[in-house]
């Protein structure tokens, strides 16, 4: 959880597993993709289409949300054909030959180039230790003044 940053966007995915089970789960939306993370590392990604969101009123233990469908064998699960074919990756081409995929990769590449340098973890540790040291020094000084 990023304490100081803005809240991250999430959406619910109804995920059908290969073993015949399903789960409603909250996934982060990053760069228009629903992403599954393991310790802040993206391990799976699905394209998030507005057109493929189904209203879901919820059930006990399952919160209401706009829900998209997903499964493990494709990045788009469009059972009704709601999204135009030109907006989806072509199914007769491999992932490295597909224009739709290469467009996504290009976008991400440019984004990585343009991203401004952010604060590193080392900087955060330094600041935290600096504040802690300052607190101790202030406490010592306060005691010296008031005693």
């Amino acid at each position, binding site marked *: 959880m990023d304490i100081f940053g803005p809240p991250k966007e999430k959406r619910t995915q109804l995920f059908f597993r290969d073993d015949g089970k399903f789960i409603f789960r909250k996934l982060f939306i990053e760069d228009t993709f629903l992403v599954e993370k393991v310790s802040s590392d993206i391990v799976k*990604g699905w394209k998030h289409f507005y057109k493929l969101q189904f209203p879901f009123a919820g059930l006990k233990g399952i919160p209401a949300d706009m829900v998209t469908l997903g499964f493990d064998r494709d990045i788009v699960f469009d059972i009704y054909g709601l999204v135009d074919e030109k907006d989806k990756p072509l199914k007769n081409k491999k992932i490295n030959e597909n224009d739709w995929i290469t467009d996504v990769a290009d976008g991400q590449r440019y984004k990585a180039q343009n991203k401004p340098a952010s604060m590193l973890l080392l900087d955060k540790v330094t600041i935290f230790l600096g504040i802690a040291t300052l607190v101790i020094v202030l406490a010592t000084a306060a005691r010296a003044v008031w005693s």
Partner: protein
Amino acid sequence: MIEEEFEPKKKKAKKKVVKRCTGIVKRKAIPIEGDELFQPLSEQVLLQAEYAHPTKGKNIREKVGVTAQVVFAQEATPPSVKAMHLVAEESKPELELNPKSSAIKRFFKRNFRQYAFIAAGLILAVIFFFFASLYGQQRDNMFLAMGVVVTLPGSIFLIWRGFRRPDLEAVIVGSNKPTTKVNSLNIYAYKDGDTGLIYPKKIAFEWIDKPKGQPQQCLNNNNWYYVNVYDLKEEVLKPMVLPDRQYFDPREFANVIKMPAHKRLFERQISLIQKVGPWVMVIAFMASLFGMIATAPTGG
């Protein structure tokens, strides 16, 4: 505040339109179901009207369904949300609105984390006053001094964090949560009669008398449900079968999203100060801690 944002708005505009609508109703004959002029409302229009008028949605759909369809049959123009507002306003005197019976509900996820932050901040503020009062009596107590210094900014930070704009999470306009027993998870879409386009309608847990297919386990509550998809051509629910062919693996696609090799090229270079900084601060922290202990007044 959240509810206000999504309340139906602009009452003045509604009043103006009501007069026009009244005129239409008085002027023309009313065809009933079965007449040539009668046109049923499209599903999209009903959904739009429900979204615009959540408290009257059920009335539009159930109680004044006939009236609404009659008005639209008289109108030569294509139906719109504005027109549905007219119908809702026109039918108002005849109806007894009961919000509890409405089929439309909005579910707001309460962000309990925000309340937890505020509560923790208030508790810490109380602890601060406790420490401060004790420290006023025992000025040479280092523990109390630390408590005063730490609890005050801590409580301020937690309360500030609690009052930050919460994440709305979910605002849903849809059917009620099922109150009866359910055995199926059904996925619905609908085809708009005017445009011929297909739109997602809802995902709902429902009861089906004779379900087909194999039940699947929902890992959220460990119950088993039949998963069905509404077939728009045959207008029946059919068991959902996932496509077998593998197209683009989400695991492979994760690499496209991350572009790890490319990001490594543009990775930020760490300066020597940044590398050494944490260690310097660790030494400073330990030194200040040592200084605090060394200068603490001894007992007796």
